[in-house]
């Protein structure tokens, strides 16, 4: 078990394409770090650099206190779970799990003990003699996990390990991975494009886009206080609404003709500045009768069961509202919405950066 440190890591491919543009992250011992972002954002490349499958163009990757830039994957003391599991198709489940230990000349009885233990933890004991193709997707996934845990490595690397499973199994395995990682306490890096997986698994969430880190934080921090418009719309489902707004005085912003208080907005912005205002679908509320609010024109309703999504517009901007089912009588064309001041997120229209009240951020925005 070890701390993993990435210091200004870059990846430039032969053709000059820069896939990772200087990323620095510290992952504490036993931490569960999830790299999330859309495809092509560089998250997998970053993970593969930690694994030693890609060379590092510049910067430094350290596992524990050892810089591993030039160390081969086998000697980095890591284990990896691949998206397609990468099980050796011609070997039995037992041999698949034991292969890495055999290559390291682990004594036979020790191998057997560890394989049996891993199989017990993952409940794959009945399948040990089968070939991978005789297993279901979920079982293969467990074998891939078994191959990782049997090695007792310092770091687990997961490359979208659940994306080949169906939705139901994905939820179940997600929980199991989390439990397993807690129990074993091994530092883990996990790559996914699924923001729900990212939120539920991580204790350190890294949102990436275009080869750069957009934000690092706990899932709650990232959700509550997205640093950029990209993070705001990427994390959370349905995604945060972005509406055009204009800065007023006294920390207020005007959206669709309605003035809203924005608790975190920088105080030194020029009134009249055009900005983007983010409001989460689940954080706007239908105003009590007689209370003033943003005028929300409803176009149609999507039923989700416990909640429903109202699609419509505020001013010129498209808006989605999530409310408990039955909050609005059938056929309602328009409602007024109120939004709590700490749920109004203001972003620079040009750079997409959060226009935040903290002094450091505020001075940058200006």
């Amino acid at each position, binding site marked *: 078990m070890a701390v993993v440190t990435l210091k200004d890591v870059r990846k430039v491919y032969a053709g000059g394409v820069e896939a990772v543009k200087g990323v620095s992250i510290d992952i504490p011992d036993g931490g569960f770090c999830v790299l999330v972002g859309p495809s092509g954002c560089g998250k997998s490349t970053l993970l593969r650099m930690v*694994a*030693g*499958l890609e060379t590092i163009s510049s910067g430094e990757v350290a596992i524990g206190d050892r810089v591993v830039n030039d160390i081969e*994957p*086998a000697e980095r003391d890591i284990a990896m779970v691949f998206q397609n599991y*990468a099980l*050796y198709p*011609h070997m039995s489940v037992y041999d698949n799990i034991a292969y*890495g230990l055999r290559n390291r000349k682990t004594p036979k009885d020790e191998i057997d003990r560890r394989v049996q233990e891993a199989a017990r933890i993952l409940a794959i004991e009945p399948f040990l003699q089968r070939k991978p193709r005789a297993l279901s997707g979920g079982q293969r996934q467990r074998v891939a996990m078994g191959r990782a845990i049997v090695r007792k490595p310092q770091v687990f690397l997961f490359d979208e390990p659940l994306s080949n499973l169906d939705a139901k199994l994905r939820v179940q395995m997600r929980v199991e991975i989390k439990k397993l990682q807690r129990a074993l306490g091994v530092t883990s890096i996990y790559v996914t494009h699924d923001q729900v997986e990212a939120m539920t698994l991580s204790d350190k969430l890294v949102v990436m886009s275009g080869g750069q880190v957009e934000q690092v934080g706990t899932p709650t921090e990232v959700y509550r206080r997205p640093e950029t418009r990209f993070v705001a719309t990427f994390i959370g489902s349905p995604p945060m609404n972005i509406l055009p707004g204009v800065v007023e005085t006294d920390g207020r912003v005007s959206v669709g003709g309605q003035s809203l208080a924005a608790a975190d907005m920088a105080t030194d912005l020029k009134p009249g500045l055009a900005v983007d205002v983010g409001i989460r679908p689940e954080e706007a509320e239908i105003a009590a009768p007689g209370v003033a609010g943003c005028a929300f024109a409803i176009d149609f309703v999507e039923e989700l069961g416990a909640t429903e999504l109202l699609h419509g517009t505020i001013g010129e901007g498209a808006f989605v509202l999530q409310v408990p089912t039955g909050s609005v009588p059938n056929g309602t064309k328009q409602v007024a919405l109120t939004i709590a001041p700490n749920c109004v997120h203001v972003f620079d229209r040009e750079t997409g950066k959060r226009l935040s009240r903290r002094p450091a951020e505020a001075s940058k925005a200006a």
Partner: protein
Amino acid sequence: MVERRTWFSTFLPHFILIMGVLIVAFPVYVAFVGSSWDAGTIANGTMPLYPGKFLVENYSRALLAGNATAREPVGPMLLNSFIMAIIIAVGKIAISIISAYAVVYFRFPLRQSAFWLIFITLMLPVEVRIYPTYKIVADLGMLDTYAGLAVPLIASATATLLFRQFFMTIPDELVEASKIDGAGPMKFFVDTVLPLSITTIAALFVIQFIYGWNQYLWPLLITTRENMQTIVIGIKKMLVTQDALTEWQLAMATAVLAMLPPVLVVLLMQKLFVRGLVETEK
């Protein structure tokens, strides 16, 4: 699909296919019948369409003894053909699989050049360079040897391309998992690539065995000693220019013996054969 089936439309395909099978099989059947009659019946052209009584005699004479024209027995020729076919098939597979592995799984200077060097040989069948090749084999002292028979036919772009194609379909993650599991390039080759290639190897073996067995021009040129002859060459030499002297019943017995091994290979390993044939042409 619902289709009105008339008596005619049900039986027409069968009729055409049976005719096809008969046309395809007829020459071989005639050869078999020919191998079961005596020289006289054949020579005066009265051979019927059913087998005669000389089957055992003809085959044992062909296999074991020479005949009136002091010909070599067929037994040793079968052995020569077998050895040549095996060396060609095994040799081709062995050198092609490792060269394809090098080209696919390594990056090194001149990799592309090496690949093209092999690739271009697709365009140089032995027939177009026959005499210079003969001269080289002669200079190397390889005339009338198994090595001379087989080695010049061993290098093959087809097999290398086939293995390359197959290696490309092995997921990248297997190499990566194997690297993380601490296996080096040769260990990955032996533990993973080779076991995964078994079907491809078997399919290629079937095709190359037939290819080697059926070689004609090359062994014709480089074998001078009777005891190095392959059976395909041997049968040709039984056809004496003056037809009267040709012992057709023995020639036909030899033809049947020469066809038997490769035809059996095709029939018994039909799946591998079809796969090999279709894949080597990709």
